[in-house]
């Protein structure tokens, strides 16, 4: 059985490669928050109150552009709806924990922490301390996000755009997704999501993200069900 400490540090170590994508993203957000007209304090606190990169960028851009507050709020909420799916995916591993633990782990549940945690839960033996893995990965990400936001605010726009460092974000996601595409259902989910993300670009409020996510999940699931049915007949 792994100790709480072992699980915690395994979570920290697993999250480290993803920090290569998070660090430039945090810097970019810090720079962008100021450029959008938010105050340094508003930009920095947005990173701990919302704690969701894409939604923070949208918040800063729309608020800075003078978009009505209801549209800003609606867009942020829509983008963050995907966390319900992460929450559901991890629920069976955490619902037995005390309320304080569940509140803390929910607060730390991001794309990047989810990605490494679900991998650990699926591929490694389960144990009574496995929730420390999410705590470790989540805390590293949280600390890195706060520090880089502050650094971005301080640096301002001294990082030239020509470095294209924000491109490390999709590259990080490629590193996660490419190796887990194992069968036809996985490929269908990815192709459908990618196609819908492009087709849906004109939609308001960044709704393409939800459209592509739901469409991709549905397509993968349908192919998976079809495969199961055929197996059952044969």
């Amino acid at each position, binding site marked *: 059985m792994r100790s709480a400490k072992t699980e915690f540090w395994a979570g920290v170590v697993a999250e480290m*490669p*993803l920090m290569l994508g998070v660090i430039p993203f945090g810097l970019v957000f810090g720079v962008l928050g100021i450029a959008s007209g*938010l105050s340094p304090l*508003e930009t920095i*606190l947005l990173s701990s*109150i*919302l704690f969701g990169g894409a939604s923070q960028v949208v918040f800063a851009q729309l*608020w800075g552009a003078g978009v009505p507050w209801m549209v*800003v*709020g609606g867009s*942020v*909420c829509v983008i*963050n709806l995907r*966390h*319900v*799916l*992460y*929450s*559901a*995916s*991890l*629920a*069976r591993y955490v*619902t037995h924990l005390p309320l304080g633990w*569940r509140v803390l782990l*929910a*607060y730390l549940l991001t*794309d990047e922490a989810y*990605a490494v945690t*679900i991998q650990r839960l699926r591929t490694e033996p389960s144990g009574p301390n496995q929730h420390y893995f999410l705590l470790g990965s989540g805390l590293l990400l949280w600390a890195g996000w706060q520090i880089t936001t502050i650094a971005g605010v301080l640096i301002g726009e001294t990082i030239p755009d020509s470095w*294209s*460092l924000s*491109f*490390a*974000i*999709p*590259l990080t996601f*490629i*590193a*996660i*997704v*490419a*190796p887990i595409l194992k069968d036809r259902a996985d490929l269908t*989910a*990815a192709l459908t*999501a*990618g*196609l*819908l*993300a*492009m087709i849906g*670009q004109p939609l308001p409020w960044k709704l393409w993200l939800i459209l*592509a*996510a739901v*469409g*991709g*999940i549905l397509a993968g*699931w349908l192919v*998976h*069900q079809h495969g199961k049915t055929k197996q059952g007949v044969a």
Partner: protein
Amino acid sequence: MIWLLMIATGLFTFATRFTMFSGLGRASLPSWLVDALNYVPIAVLTAIIVPAVLIDPASSTVAIVDNPRLYAALAAIAVALWTRQVVLTIVAGLGMLWLLQWLL
């Protein structure tokens, strides 16, 4: 006003993360939903990747042939499949991007 909006969206975002951790309805999570949830990371992450690669951030238009980010992404996919290492994938992708931007 901005503070009210920040707190309201922050509470909503926390709620999306906490919903299923509340313990309500855990036993009733049906198997089709568990099956479907397997496709969440693939679908969501691919949905973020594809526009980030194919849409030119400067002009907001779709770019295919003369798009250094597309070739950088293809290099990254190859390295990801070959090595399964996040760091090497990022190095390959950014390296290819910088090389092409320098050449063109």
